C-alpha cells in the first residue's frame, strides 16, 4: 500500500502528536535522514536535506555551507567558482525562493558570494524543490529552498562553540520556562578584518605614496528565537535573523584630510508565527514577518579648507522592505485527502538608488539631501492557494493545486493563475513513476551588471513595460528503491521561461535605474535535460553518484536573432560523493565534481587591415553570444572529522578539509590572445588553488 504520511509531518486524527514534540534539542536532531524522507512524495525534483547531511559533508574553509552543498546536486549549476550561485534547471540565479522559517530572504551570501548566509549549526533541515512545486510556494521561477532552523530545547541547556581559520561560531539554546518556553541564539563572525589590517600596514610601509590607507572586511550573522507552548494545541515562535557584510576603506593624506568608503550590506528578518491545532483534523500556521535587504555604499571626506573643517558624506543606498502576513492551513477531511490552503499578503518597498548627501561645514549641517521618497517603488502582492494531496487508489497519488497571485505596482496590476499538478504511481514496491507540471511567476527582477554577488546588485519590481518572469515546467521520472540499500532515480525536465531580463546599457557597477526598464531587454529561455542519481546508503556509508545531461538556451531578439546557449549551459555534470563513518570518533568524506566548461562571449572572427608600412590592425567580431566554451571544470574536496565524546556527553570535533585537493586551476575568466603565427588562443585566469583548512567544534 502506498503511504503518503511522512515521518515528521502532521498526521490526521488520533495519530497527530502533541504540538510540543516538534520542539527538538540542538543535539538530538530528530530530522529523519533525507533518504527516508524522500520516498513516497508526489512531487518530482524534491530533495530533503537534514542538518547531519549538511554538517558531515562539504565544508569550504572547514565551514559547512548550505548553498555550496546544494551546488553538488544534479540539475544545479554553481556559476563562478566559489560563489554562491545557484542556477537550477537553466535558471538565472536570482529566481530561487530562499525561505528562512517561512520568510523570504534576498541576500543569501556573504563576501561577494564566498559564504552562504545560513549558519548550518542552526539549520534543522531544508526542502529543496527543483520542479513539481506545490501550490503553497510561489514568487520565484526555478527553485524553492525552504530552510528551517532548530528550536530551543525545552528541558536542558545546550550549546556549540566552533573556531575555524577565518570565522567563529557560537550557539546556545535552552529553556526559559521548563517545558513551556525555550530560546536559541547563534552568532557567527569572520575575523578577516584582523588579517587585512596588518596587510594594509605592510602595504603602507612599502608604498611610494605618503598617504596611509587602511582596509577592513568582516561579515557576521545572528540568529535568535523564542518558542513558547501556550497549550497542547498552540505554540508561538519569534524568530530573528540578521546578517551583515562590512567593508571599510580609509585613506589619510599628509595634509590630514581623511577619506573613507564604507560599504555595508545584508538582511534583517523578523517573524512571529503561531502554530495551532484548530480541531482534530485542521491545523494552521500564521506568520507575521518583516524582511529587509540593505546595501549601502558610503563615501566620506573630512578636510580642512582655509581653517574651516568640512565633512562631506554621501551614500548610495539600495533597500528592499517587505512586510507580510501569511496563513497556511492543513486539513485532513478524509483519510485519502490532505488539503492545504491559505494565503499571503506582502507589501514591498523597493528603494533602488537612494542618494543621501550631507555637508557639515564649521558649526553644523548646511546641506542635506535625501531623495528617498522620489525613487521608491511599491508593490502589493496577494496570493491565495489550495492544493489537495489525494490518494486515489492504493498506488496512485495526485497533488493538484492552484495558486492565484495579484501583484499591483505603480500604474499596473498583474493577475496570474498558476496551476500545479504532480502525480505518482507506484508500479511495484521498488518503483515509483512520477510526473509534474508547474506554472510559476516572479514579480521582481534582480538587476546585476556582473557575475558576482555584489552589493551593487539591485532588486526591482515588475514595471508597466516589463511584466513578471514566467516559467512552465514539466518533469517526470522513475524512482527505484532497490534492495541492498541501493537507490536509483531518473528524472527529466523541460522548462520554458519568458520575460527574462538582460542588461544592455552601459555596463558599469551601478546601472542607471531611474528608468531601468529602458536599459534592459526581455527575452526567452528554455532548459531541458535528464538527471540520474545512484546511491548506496547505509547508516555508516553513503556513496552517491549524480549525473546531469542538460541544455540551457536563451533567445533575446535584441542580442541575437536565434536561440543561443546560456553562459551556464553545461552539457554534462558528474558528482561523486563518499562519506564513511569508520567509528563513532572518525569519519571521512570526499566529493569529486566534473562538468563541461562554462561558456562566454569571445571574439571569434577578425578582419585584418595590412597597411603599406607592414603594420596590421584588426577589427574583432563574435558570431553569437556565449560562443566559446571554457575547459571542463573539475575538482576534488576531501575532509575528515575526528569526534570525541566526553564522559558528560559533550562532543568535540576536529574537522580537516581540503578544497580542490589536487589543485586543479579552473579558469574563472578568460580572454583571447594572438599567437606568433597569427592564430589566437584562449587564456584563462585561474585564482583558486588547493585550500586546506581546519576547524574545532565543541558541543555541550
Amino acid at each position, binding site marked *: 500500500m502506498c503511504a503518503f504520511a511522512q515521518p515528521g509531518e502532521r498526521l490526521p486524527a488520533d495519530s497527530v502528536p502533541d504540538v510540543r514534540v516538534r520542539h527538538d534539542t540542538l543535539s538530538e536532531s530528530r530530522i529523519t535522514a533525507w533518504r527516508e524522507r524522500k520516498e513516497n512524495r508526489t512531487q518530482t525534483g524534491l530533495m530533503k536535506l537534514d542538518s547531519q547531511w549538511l554538517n558531515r559533508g562539504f565544508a569550504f574553509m572547514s565551514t559547512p555551507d548550505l548553498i555550496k552543498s546544494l551546488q553538488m546536486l544534479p540539475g544545479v549549476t554553481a556559476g563562478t567558482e566559489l560563489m554562491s550561485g545557484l542556477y537550477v534547471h537553466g535558471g538565472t540565479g536570482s529566481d530561487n525562493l530562499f525561505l528562512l522559517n517561512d520568510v523570504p530572504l534576498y541576500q543569501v551570501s556573504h563576501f561577494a558570494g564566498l559564504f552562504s548566509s545560513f549558519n548550518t549549526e542552526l539549520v534543522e533541515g531544508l526542502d529543496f524543490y527543483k520542479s513539481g512545486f506545490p501550490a503553497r510556494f510561489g514568487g520565484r521561477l526555478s527553485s524553492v529552498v525552504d530552510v528551517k532552523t532548530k528550536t530551543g530545547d525545552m528541558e536542558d541547556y545546550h550549546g556549540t562553540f566552533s573556531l575555524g581559520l577565518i570565522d567563529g561560531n557560537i550557539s546556545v539554546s535552552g529553556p526559559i520556562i521548563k517545558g513551556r518556553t525555550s530560546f536559541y541564539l547563534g552568532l557567527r563572525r569572520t575575523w578577516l578584518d584582523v588579517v587585512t589590517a596588518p*596587510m*594594509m600596514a605592510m*602595504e603602507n610601509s612599502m*608604498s611610494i*605614496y605618503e598617504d596611509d*590607507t587602511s*582596509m577592513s572586511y568582516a561579515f557576521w550573522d545572528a540568529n535568535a528565537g523564542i518558542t513558547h507552548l501556550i497549550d497542547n494545541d498552540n505554540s508561538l515562535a519569534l524568530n530573528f535573523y540578521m546578517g551583515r557584510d562590512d567593508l571599510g576603506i580609509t*585613506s589619510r*593624506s599628509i595634509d590630514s584630510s581623511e*577619506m573613507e568608503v564604507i560599504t555595508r550590506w545584508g538582511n534583517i528578518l523578523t517573524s512571529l508565527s503561531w502554530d495551532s491545532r484548530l480541531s482534530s483534523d485542521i491545523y494552521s500556521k500564521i506568520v507575521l514577518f518583516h524582511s529587509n535587504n540593505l546595501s549601502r555604499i558610503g563615501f566620506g571626506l573630512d578636510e580642512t579648507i582655509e581653517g574651516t573643517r568640512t565633512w562631506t558624506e554621501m551614500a548610495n543606498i539600495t533597500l528592499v522592505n517587505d512586510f507580510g502576513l501569511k496563513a497556511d492551513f492543513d486539513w485532513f477531511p478524509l483519510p485519502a485527502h490532505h488539503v492545504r490552503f491559505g494565503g499571503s499578503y506582502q507589501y514591498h518597498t523597493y528603494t533602488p538608488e537612494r542618494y543621501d548627501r550631507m555637508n557639515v561645514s564649521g558649526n553644523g549641517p548646511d546641506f542635506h539631501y535625501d531623495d528617498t521618497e522620489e525613487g521608491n517603488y511599491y508593490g502589493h502582492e496577494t496570493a491565495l492557494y489550495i492544493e489537495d494531496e489525494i490518494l486515489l487508489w492504493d498506488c496512485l497519488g495526485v497533488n493538484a493545486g492552484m495558486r492565484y497571485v495579484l501583484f499591483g505596482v505603480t500604474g499596473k496590476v498583474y493577475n496570474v493563475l498558476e496551476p500545479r499538478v504532480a502525480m505518482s504511481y507506484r508500479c511495484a514496491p521498488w518503483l515509483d513513476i512520477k510526473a509534474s507540471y508547474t506554472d510559476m511567476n516572479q514579480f521582481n527582477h534582480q538587476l546585476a551588471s556582473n*557575475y558576482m554577488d555584489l552589493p551593487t546588485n539591485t532588486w526591482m519590481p515588475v514595471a*508597466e513595460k516589463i511584466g513578471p518572469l514566467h516559467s512552465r515546467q514539466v518533469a517526470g521520472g522513475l524512482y527505484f528503491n532497490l534492495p541492498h540499500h541501493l537507490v536509483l532515480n531518473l528524472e527529466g525536465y523541460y522548462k520554458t521561461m519568458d520575460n527574462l531580463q538582460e542588461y*544592455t*546599457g*552601459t*555596463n*558599469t*557597477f551601478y546601472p*542607471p535605474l*531611474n*528608468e531601468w*526598464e*529602458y*536599459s534592459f531587454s526581455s527575452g526567452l529561455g528554455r532548459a531541458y535535460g535528464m538527471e540520474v542519481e545512484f546511491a548506496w546508503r547505509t547508516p555508516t556509508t553513503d556513496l552517491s553518484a549524480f549525473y546531469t545531461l542538460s541544455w540551457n538556451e536563451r533567445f533575446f*531578439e535584441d*542580442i*541575437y*536573432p536565434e536561440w543561443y546557449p546560456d*553562459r551556464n549551459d553545461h552539457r554534462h555534470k558528474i558528482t561523486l560523493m563518499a562519506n564513511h563513518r569508520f567509528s563513532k570518533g572518525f569519519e571521512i568524506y570526499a566529493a569529486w565534481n566534473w562538468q563541461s566548461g562554462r561558456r562566454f*562571449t569571445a*571574439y*571569434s*572572427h*577578425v*578582419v*585584418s*587591415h595590412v597597411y603599406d608600412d607592414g603594420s596590421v590592425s584588426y577589427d574583432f*567580431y563574435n*558570431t*553569437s553570444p*556565449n560562443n*566559446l566554451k*571554457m575547459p571542463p571544470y573539475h575538482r576534488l574536496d576531501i575532509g575528515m572529522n575526528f569526534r570525541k565524546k566526553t564522559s558528560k556527553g559533550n562532543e568535540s570535533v576536529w574537522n580537516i578539509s581540503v578544497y580542490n585537493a589536487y589543485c586543479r*586551476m579552473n*579558469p574563472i*575568466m*578568460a*580572454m*583571447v590572445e594572438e599567437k606568433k*603565427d597569427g*592564430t*589566437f*588562443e*584562449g*587564456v*584563462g*585566469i*585561474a*585564482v*583558486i588553488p588547493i585550500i586546506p583548512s581546519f576547524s574545532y567544534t565543541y558541543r555541550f
Partner: protein
Amino acid sequence: MKCLYIKVLALVCVLVSLVSCERRFELEYEDVEDRLRVKCQPSTMWDNYTILVTGVRSMGKPFKKYKHPDGLDVKLFVDGELMEMSQWQSETALGFNVKHTPMPGQKIRLEASAAGFVPVHAEVVVPDPVEDFEVSFEELEDRYYGVTLKYADNPDTEDMYGVVVYLRRVKETLGGEFVEFVEREVCSGIELPSYFLDASDGILLDYANGGNIAIWRDTRANDGGYQNYTFSVRRHEDYQVSDTGLAVGNDGTHVVRTQYRVSVFKVSKEYYRYHFGVWSDHNNIMGAMGLSSPTNTYTNIHGGLGVLGAISHMHGEWRY
C-alpha cells in the same frame, strides 16, 4: 581619491597574483568557418546606397592560410525583384552600388556567397516614416542646445527611432534677407537621456556607421498616440567660430543667426540593434574588467556578420 584607488587596486592585484595563474587552452568555438561581413543601410533619403562586403577570418585560422573572398556573388532583391548593381573595390572591402530609392513597406533581401565562406542572407522591411513631429529648440550654455520632440507613435507597436540635428549659421540683413552662409549644416554630437547611457557629462555619440544619429527605442509611455522625447545636442567645438565681426551692430546692417533643422528617422529594429550593440560593446566597462560577459554585437546577417538595416526619414524645416 586616485591614490586610494591605486593602493586598493595594487593590494587586490597582489592578492590575486599570489594565487592566480594563467592557463592556456584551445579555443573551442561552435564553428570556425570564415564569414562574410555585410553592411548595407538603405535610407529613403537617398536614391542609391552601398553594400559593403568583407571577408572575416576565423580566429582559429592563421593569417597566412586566409584567402580573401573570391568569386563573390551578391544579389539584392526588392519585393522579390533582382536589382542591378555596380561593383567597386577598396583595400578592405568589395562595394556594390545599388540605384534604388527605398520606399516604406518594401522588403529588401540580400544574398551573398563566396568560395570558402559561409553563404549569407538577410532581410529587412523599410519602416514607415514618422508621420508628424514638432520640435522645440532652446539654446543653452556651453554650446548646448535642448531639443524636445513630440511625435506620433503607435502605442501598440514597438518602434525604433533616430534623430539628427543640423545647425548652420546664416548672415542676413536686418530685414531678414539672406546674405551668405557662415557655417553650413553642422551636424552635432547628440547626448541621450540618462536611461540610455550613464549620466556622465560631455559624452558625444558618434556611431561608427550611423554618423551622429541618436537612436532610441519606443518603450516609453504613450500619451494619446504621441510621445515626447527630450535630449541635448552640443555643437562640436571644431565648428565653433568667432562671430565677433558678424554681430548685430557691427556694421549696423547685418546679423548672424543660428538655424537648426531636425530630421527624425524611423529605423528598422535591425539597424537599432546593431548600432546599439556596437555602442554597448564600446561601453562595457564590467566586461573589460572580466566581471561580466563581453557584449555580443548584434547581427541579422544569417551565416555572417554586419547588418542590413533600413531608415525612413522625415526632415523638418530650417528654423531659427
